[in-house]
């Protein structure tokens, strides 16, 4: 096989100037949360590394994650596709179909064993009846491609946690990738979908540093999932102040009060929406007046209604208003106690009387 072009060479070949290239690297470094001085490292990595082959498999998905991926601003999607990675297989974007498309996939397995990144979008059903591609079991294809991959990147809440298809009652037995693969290093990039720059940032990290980013205990890259929305929310001051939106479009909503009381799940959601924002930093759901419903959290579809704060009864699907239930239980107990108290007094009176008679 002939020597592959480095990212730098590819960029220059694609008509980018050295200056454009450096700019891209700086943007990348920023996206990775690096100091400006560290962008040197990125430049060096891009100058010496070839484009990383990527196979992007779609299972029980909605393609929202692919769509998000191509919204990337820093680095631009074109740069990602033409300079950083070589997207060898994608059901949404690949030119060939049918067996020619399958050939593309097989070539990667043959030529780049242990070098390519396997991106996965969508959950995988245990039963092949619910998903075949090219007459093949989706699960089998996944296992085959996973075995030869350098790393698996599970894009989106579907492949990370099971997502929408796995929401109760999970009619197809949908599962996250981690249920099937154990040996290949796997990065979870949850979100429904994840933010574009988070998606490209993870790949950029692998290319730049030649290793996986540091992951948290659930397998998410710390760089993007370290904090809760609530910790960085632009409305946080109003939370602390106790100033809340009570109704959509009320005065509080216009002033930007906190959305906690209309159900915001920001306090329990790990994602970088508040920090990076969406679509080139324009906004994010909370900024635009919508309570976060926790789309990057495990099981968020089953964590109760979106517009009220509720608690889940552990181990069940059931969510309840804990205060109503608590009050009811305590009220019942109090009523029981009253009855019992009356009984106690009567019994004691009777006992005392009997005792007196005995003496």
């Amino acid at each position, binding site marked *: 096989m002939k020597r592959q072009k480095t990212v730098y060479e590819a960029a220059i*070949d694609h008509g980018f100037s050295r200056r454009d290239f450096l700019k891209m690297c700086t943007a990348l470094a920023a996206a990775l949360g690096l100091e400006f001085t560290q962008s040197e490292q990125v430049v060096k990595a891009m100058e010496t590394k070839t484009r990383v082959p990527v196979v992007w498999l779609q299972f029980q998905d909605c393609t929202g994650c692919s769509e998000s991926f191509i919204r990337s601003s820093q680095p631009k999607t074109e740069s990602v596709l033409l300079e950083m990675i070589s997207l060898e297989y994608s059901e949404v974007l690949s030119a060939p179909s049918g067996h020619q498309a399958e050939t593309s996939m097989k070539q990667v397995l043959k030529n780049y064993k242990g070098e390519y990144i396997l991106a996965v979008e969508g959950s995988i059903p245990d039963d092949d009846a619910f*998903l075949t591609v090219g007459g093949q079991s989706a699960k089998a294809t996944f296992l085959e491609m996973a075995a030869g991959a350098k790393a698996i990147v599970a894009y989106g809440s579907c492949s990370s946690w099971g997502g929408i298809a796995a929401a109760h009652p999970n009619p197809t037995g949908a599962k996250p990738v981690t249920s099937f693969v154990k040996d290949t290093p796997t990065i979870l990039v949850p979100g429904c979908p994840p933010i574009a720059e988070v998606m490209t940032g993870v790949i950029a990290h692998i290319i730049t540093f030649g290793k996986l980013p540091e992951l948290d205990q659930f397998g998410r890259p710390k760089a993007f999932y370290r904090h809760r929305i609530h910790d960085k929310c632009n409305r946080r001051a109003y939370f602390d102040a106790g100033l809340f939106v009570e109704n959509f479009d009320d005065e509080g909503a216009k002033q930007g009060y906190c959305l906690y009381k209309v159900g915001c799940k920001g306090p329990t959601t790990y994602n970088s929406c508040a920090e990076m924002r969406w679509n080139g930093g324009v906004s994010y759901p909370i900024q635009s*007046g919508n309570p976060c419903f926790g789309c990057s959290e495990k099981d968020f579809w089953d964590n109760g209604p979106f517009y009220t704060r509720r608690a889940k009864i552990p181990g069940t699907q059931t969510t309840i208003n804990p205060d109503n239930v608590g009050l009811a239980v305590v009220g019942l107990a109090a009523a029981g106690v009253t009855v019992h108290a009356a009984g106690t007094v009567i019994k004691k009176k009777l006992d005392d009387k009997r005792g007196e008679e005995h003496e």
Partner: protein
Amino acid sequence: MSERIVVDPITRIEGHLRVEVDIDEKGVIKEAYSSGTSVRGLELIVKDRDPRDVWAYVQRICGVCTTVHALTSIRAVEDALKIKIPRNAHLIRDIMNEAQFVHDHVVHFYHLHALDWVDVVSATKADPAETSKIAQSISSWLKSSPGYFTDVQNKVKKLIESGQLGLFANGYWGHKAYKLPPEVNLLAVAHYLEALDWQKEIVKIHTIFGGKNPHPHYVVGGMATPLDINSDNGVHAERLMHVSQLIDQAREFVNQVYIPDLLAIGSFYKDWTYGGGLNNYLCYGDFSTGDIYDTKLYRMPRGIVLNGNLNEVLDIDLKDPKHIQEYIDHSWYTYDGEDGGKGKHPFEGETTLNYTGPKAPFKTLDTNKQYSWLKAPRFKEHPMETGPLARMIVGYASGKEEIVNIVDDTLKKLDLPIAALQSALGRTVARGLETVLISGWLRNDMDALLKNIKSGNQSTFDRTKWEPSTWPERAKGVGWMEAPRGALGHWIDIEKGKTKNYQAVVPTTWNASPRDHKNTIGAYEAALKGTPMLNKEEPLEIMRIIHSFDPCLACAVH
């Protein structure tokens, strides 16, 4: 003897589509079968949920037409609960949908469809100076210098030399059905890349009003995004100007890049007249200048054209149990425990998964039996095509001036009769034409919104029916809209504040439908029939026809 050709996966679409065709010895397609090979069961997942939340679940039916299921869902709930939303909310929703159309159609043209007509490899042989001349003759778009096209050409050359072709590897390059001169191929490739960069801009309209894209947020009763020109937090002057600017940029891109490219490319394929199909067209209509119930004020009219008869536009009632029914005789479902035999109106609809197909890995499906995860929706037992072509035809037949004019003008430019629209290429042209109209409405609706705000009306949400305690014990409703791929309907049955039943009948369910109880074929299947294939190993013709519908299988099956 006929031979079975299988194309699976069909790429450059959304979702998992498999097409099987039987060709005769001359390579002409005799029979076609369209199959959706994946299912998630979203109609079952939303059962028992709070109707106010359902939009978010069903929005995940599709991330490509990422806004339409959410919108249809809240319309269905609002219909059931008789909620009247403020005018501003209606305008914002329309603006978001119009932005969705423009985005979706441009991406479809360049990234999903173009490679069926454009040979990327041939672009390396182009004379960039010549491309520049062509570009400047069809448009005043600034990026058109010979130097610019030389740069693009170099990118392509180096890509090929690098041996890492990525997305373009194993394409049908050099296929005899490609007819464009290298110069036009180069032009298209340049705009493939430009469109990639542009598409991420227009969606910022969603981000401003709904917080993100894909999957912006919605709310039953209006929009959560507050309008307040005197607040530092609501949608104020800066945000409004940002939206305005995005709209103007989008219109420029459509008029200066997309449409000129479309007509230039189309004019080379005028003789390729295949892919017409059913000639039955269905539209629910949308883009009301009043509210959603003012069907008379729809800029995109409602109606049905049967058998290509442009003299008559039939009416359609989404709540009439006889009008729309879904059949499952060739689909992997059961109704009341039976394999089929009858149709069900969505209010009575049922989603019971029952796979009877072959065990993977398999070579072919048993197309005499059940062969798809799509149901087969029918209008009074007629299969229907829906989408841009249907909208242009129904609009034309209804005499909508805007639509009649743009269709007539374009046909005149291309020197074609109206019947020419009934083809794969016609569908692709219709998509472009409606993009022109819709991007104009985008401007109009934004202006209307600004006017409203100026006159002091800033309300975006109606809270009177927000609390479930204000709802009736039982309520049914239907939400409809025109989505990029066609007529979309969601039917909800609400009982005691919970979703009792939910059914979606989606544009691609109509178009990619399998056979029904009478073995009547669907729109894809009809469009493929009779098409000659030059090379059965490289199914470029199938791709052209199927792609002209802009398939979305996640939508179709859900």
